[in-house]
């Protein structure tokens, strides 16, 4: 088992003929991801890395059969159109790779996804990998390195930083600790699947025995994870690192924002909430392997 994707997940690449689309198609294909097709309007009939290209998502599904996940590599300003097309065609999960997606575009996408009972990962995400099974996005850079860095095992990895997603997984692998799935939730202020949602999915995954979290200041994601633990909805141990201890607090940008966050969002509140819930918060990402090992033994 793993979460969200595995060797049977049928993946479509939207924006497959672009610079990023081509390079990452090669990565995903070489890793062993089941790529059923790609879409670039006006480029139907071509092939990228042996993957057939279609003019629309609908056409791709008609020709190739059902699609589980669409991964989107179009420019930020076109993400809304691409994601809405994928969702309208009935795809239940979209991975939005680009960064700088306008926030109202994202809100529209997420509203549509919610109405279709679909999920979005991202935007501004490197994607996700279930080691040995499938990789969606650009994580790892090259298939050979992704295989070397990420190994299958009991640790679920969830991170708000792309670079740190790879780094944590790599240090775990080096310490002999494999991963069930590795998810970069994306770095933006609003994301589709965030820490709380991913942690809840890990909770239900038989392969995952322990969860590592790379959190950051801003948003209420980490506090909401703490809430889930306190409510008993998460029973698997969690080890977390929080970035941004040093960031200047006190520059109150918006009163309304502060009202909504209700005093959440800072390093201190995140650390306090997580620790109160019994989550181990480490001071250095180099502490992850040691703390994970400790807790794996005590299960």
């Amino acid at each position, binding site marked *: 088992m793993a979460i969200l994707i595995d060797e049977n997940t049928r993946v479509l690449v939207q924006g497959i003929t672009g610079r990023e689309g081509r390079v990452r198609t090669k990565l995903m294909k070489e890793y062993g991801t089941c790529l059923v097709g790609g879409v670039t309007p006006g480029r139907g009939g071509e092939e990228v890395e042996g993957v057939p290209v279609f003019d629309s998502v609908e056409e791709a599904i008609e020709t190739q059969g059902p699609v589980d996940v669409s991964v989107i590599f179009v420019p930020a300003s076109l993400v809304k159109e691409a994601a809405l097309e994928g969702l309208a065609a009935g795809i239940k999960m979209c991975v939005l790779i680009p960064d700088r997606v306008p926030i*109202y575009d994202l809100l529209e996408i997420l*509203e549509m996804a919610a109405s279709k009972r679909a999920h979005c990962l991202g935007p501004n995400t490197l994607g996700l990998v279930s080691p040995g099974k499938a990789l969606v996005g650009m994580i790892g850079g090259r298939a050979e390195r992704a295989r070397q860095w990420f190994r299958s095992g009991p640790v679920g990895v969830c991170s708000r930083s*792309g670079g740190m997603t790879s*780094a944590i997984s790599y240090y775990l692998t080096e310490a002999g600790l494999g991963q069930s799935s590795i998810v970069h939730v994306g770095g933006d202020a609003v994301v589709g699947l965030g820490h709380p949602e991913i942690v809840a999915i890990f909770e239900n995954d038989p392969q995952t025995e322990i969860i590592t979290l790379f959190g950051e200041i801003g948003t209420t994601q980490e506090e909401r994870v703490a809430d889930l633990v306190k409510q008993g909805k998460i029973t698997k141990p969690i080890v977390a690192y929080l970035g941004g201890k040093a960031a*200047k607090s006190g520059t109150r940008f918006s009163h*309304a924002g502060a009202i*909504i966050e209700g005093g959440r969002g800072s390093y201190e509140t995140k650390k306090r909430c997580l620790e109160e819930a019994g989550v181990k918060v480490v001071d250095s990402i180099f502490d992850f392997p040691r703390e994970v090992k400790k807790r794996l033994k005590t299960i």
Partner: protein
Amino acid sequence: MFEYQAKKLLKEQGIKIPRGEVAHSPEEVYQIAVQLNRPVVLKAQVWLTGRAEKGGILFASSPEEAKQKAQELFGRKIGKFTVEEVLVEEKLAIAHEYFAGLVIDDHVKKPVIVFSSVGGTGIEELAQKDPAKVLRLTVSLSQGIKEFEMRNLLRRRGFQGKLLAQLSATLTKLYTLARQLEARSLEVNPLVLTESGDLIAADCHLAVDDYAVFRHPELPIEVAREFDRPPTPLEKIAYHVEKRDYRGTFYFLQMAEDVSPEDKMIGFHGAGGGGSMMSMDAVLAQGFKLANYCDTSGNPPASKVYRAARIILSQPYLKGYFASGSGAASQEQYHSARGLVKAFLEENLAIPAVIRLGGNYENLAVQILHTYLSRVKGVVEGYGHADSAEYCAQRLAELVEENGFLSHQVSPLVYPDFSRFSYRFSTMTGEVLVDHQACARCQTKGCIKACLAGILTLDQDGRPVLNISPAEAQRGKCTECLACELFCKFHEQEAIYIYLPIPGLEEYRRQIIAFQTRPKGGKN
């Protein structure tokens, strides 16, 4: 965006604002006050909340008094801002103050309208203490908000009559405006009910989504970055570097407000948000102050890293340079290494630098740093993924101490004599210059092999020339990897120089140099 600019947008949407205008001098303040012909309020236009307590808001009952008070206000420092513009408005006869705003909730992933029957300062505390006093309305983007819905909601809260009608219209218009401008937040605090029964937006704060600014050329936004203050001159220079070059990301933010020679200040150069944040935490734990935050990531070319380093090193009094990312970056680390080498050499760096380049090809990257920077005055140490950010920060602290806390001196940008370069071609953001006369003495012709893009070949006289068209080189076939220049500089005739201009930086450095040479102990 300033208060008066945001208010103008409110007015266009049909929300009432106080009568008034912006003045740039006490004389203009006088003229506006005469026109208004009633008591006025003078509001310094600075990006700060809590202006009133800081003396940024003054009242005057006559034009003469307004002029006199304006003389105190112009040129004064409020926080770190100098007052250059003053908004002169009619003084409102306040019967009641409300708070109205819109923000995006990361949990429900929708815009939320926030309205409180108590306005003014301390609104957050009220919301926590007495949440019932604060009305929140989550808006569906596809449905939008209808005025009648707003009216029903407010009616249930006990509002009625003309006030109810005005409030529901205003809140609906606020949402419409926020949606139209793609605002991450829009606030009116206070929203004033006057004694004559009018609802007027007395203050306004608007933050437009910087990812959407490109769609709003109508807005007066110079630098699309989420600053809580106007960008500094150096940030503007950095922003224009980024704007001209879409390859990779370069983000630069100055963090220190007052710098003095005594500060344990460092220049910070991260790669990737999460890794940068972790690395900043590590250097701050060593007792350093950060002059800036900088992030070059997303596989930037060496030229962009070079420019970032030169911009960072345009800040005075740095005691050290710290570059560190996630530790397992997927981008090729030798690009960053070459960019830093070129910058440090041209800078003739005298302060220590610790560079943590964990990731793809990190060994080669570290080797490039150590080989090519062994001759600069400041000690440069390179590390890979196996060394933690904490350890690297500790090394920097030790090196800075060994260096006697020597301050970095900003120096003028120095270029070689361009006239000796007889062969040249343009790249995407610069120019490659080759001294073909010097090439005649070259034994190895190593630049051809060094060129990662493989766009150089030897002409019949054994000198490097393009093997593609100059137009192709300029479109990006030359990746500005800087490998040819560094090879030639260290192993051959120093015949190649890559000119990578940074518009505005020469002039900026002149000002910093003048500032540096002021008598000791001077504060910014």
